[in-house]
């Protein structure tokens, strides 16, 4: 049966037969889905993530920077907490310093009763406000500690004043602190 059907066929050229392939066409529904998928994939390429080695490096560098910043802050706070204690020890071991002119000037308004050893040490390391945006005029003592100032020990404050006034971050409200 099949052979008889084939025999009855009028034959065509190869080119004509191949052109028949052009009739294999997707419908409109296919193209709607195609466009949707393509747009989605193109959007993904536009917001494509970095390759994994770059992501790992970025993560590591972020954590490293964070760790360094925390360590630096801890070191500064540690120094600020420890230094007065050491200085207090050195002061008590050298009572002659209590008579120095600097200490006298800082305690000019203190009464005679207040001049015990403990008060001397406290006065020497009195917390002083250093304002980033001001020069020597900023050496004011204010009761509250805003975001635009930091605390330093007032011991030898003349040595700190240059750093405070000439710091490169003055406009941003951040003071540099150098020991």
């Amino acid at each position, binding site marked *: 049966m099949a052979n008889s*059907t*084939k025999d*009855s*066929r*009028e*034959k*065509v*050229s*190869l*080119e*004509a*037969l*191949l*052109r*028949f*392939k*052009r*009739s*294999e*066409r*997707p*419908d409109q529904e*296919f*193209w709607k889905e*195609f*466009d949707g*998928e*393509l747009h989605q*994939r*193109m959007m993904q*390429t*536009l917001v494509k993530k970095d390759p994994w080695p770059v992501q790992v490096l970025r993560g590591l560098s972020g954590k490293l920077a964070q760790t360094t910043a925390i360590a630096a802050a801890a070191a500064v706070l540690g120094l600020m907490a420890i230094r007065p204690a050491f200085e207090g020890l050195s002061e008590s071991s050298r009572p002659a310093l209590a008579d120095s002119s600097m200490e006298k000037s800082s305690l000019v308004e203190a009464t005679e009763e207040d001049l015990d050893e403990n008060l001397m040490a406290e006065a020497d390391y009195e917390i002083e406000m250093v304002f980033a945006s001001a020069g020597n005029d900023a050496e004011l003592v204010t009761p509250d500690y805003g975001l635009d100032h930091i605390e330093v020990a007032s011991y030898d404050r003349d040595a700190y004043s240059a750093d405070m006034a000439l710091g490169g971050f003055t406009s941003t409200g951040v003071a540099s602190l150098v020991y």
Partner: protein
Amino acid sequence: MATPGSVTKSIFPAQDAPVSDRDLDWAVVQKVQAGNVGAFDQLVQKYREQIFSVVYNMTSNREDASDLTQETFIKAFQAIGRFRGKSSFFTWIYRIAVNTTMTFLKKRNRRRYISYENIDEEASSSEIVERLTASNRSEKGALVSELQEKLNDALQKLSPKHRTVVILHEIEGLEHAEIAEITGTSQGTVRSRLHYAKQQLQSYLQDYLV
């Protein structure tokens, strides 16, 4: 013969396409390069059917063809900044499609998953079907399915290189010079491959051929 990339071109290659078609594409490409990402959609709408047709005929699988056609446009989109207009956008994107499909076929190796595309309803009343069958409607429907299977089988028996040349020339209607540019070969090689491929197809499809 046909100038590819015609504005009026759908799945059938246009005859006597306007000379400015390449310039029109280049203008759209420049828009995309200037940051108008949406303009790329014009190129997608213009060439998607042609690209799909080539890829589908090379793979005989509509899902793979859909995926590879999308991949072709994504690659073109990603590389469009480097397109300098020395060749036409048409041949450039065809080349991307052919290379992408060739790479896919190498990976797919010997495994073959057939998933045929729908046959256009008009095919039943086409000249070829009319000539190959009697007027019986049910016989026509059977023949259309049979033809689809036989043609796809025959094409898949060819090597990917020979298949590409046959598809581009006989189905897409491209010139030898254009095929040479797309496949990165000489026109002589294109003619040679075409001749050999047609000989092979003649033997595979002899039941239907003169």
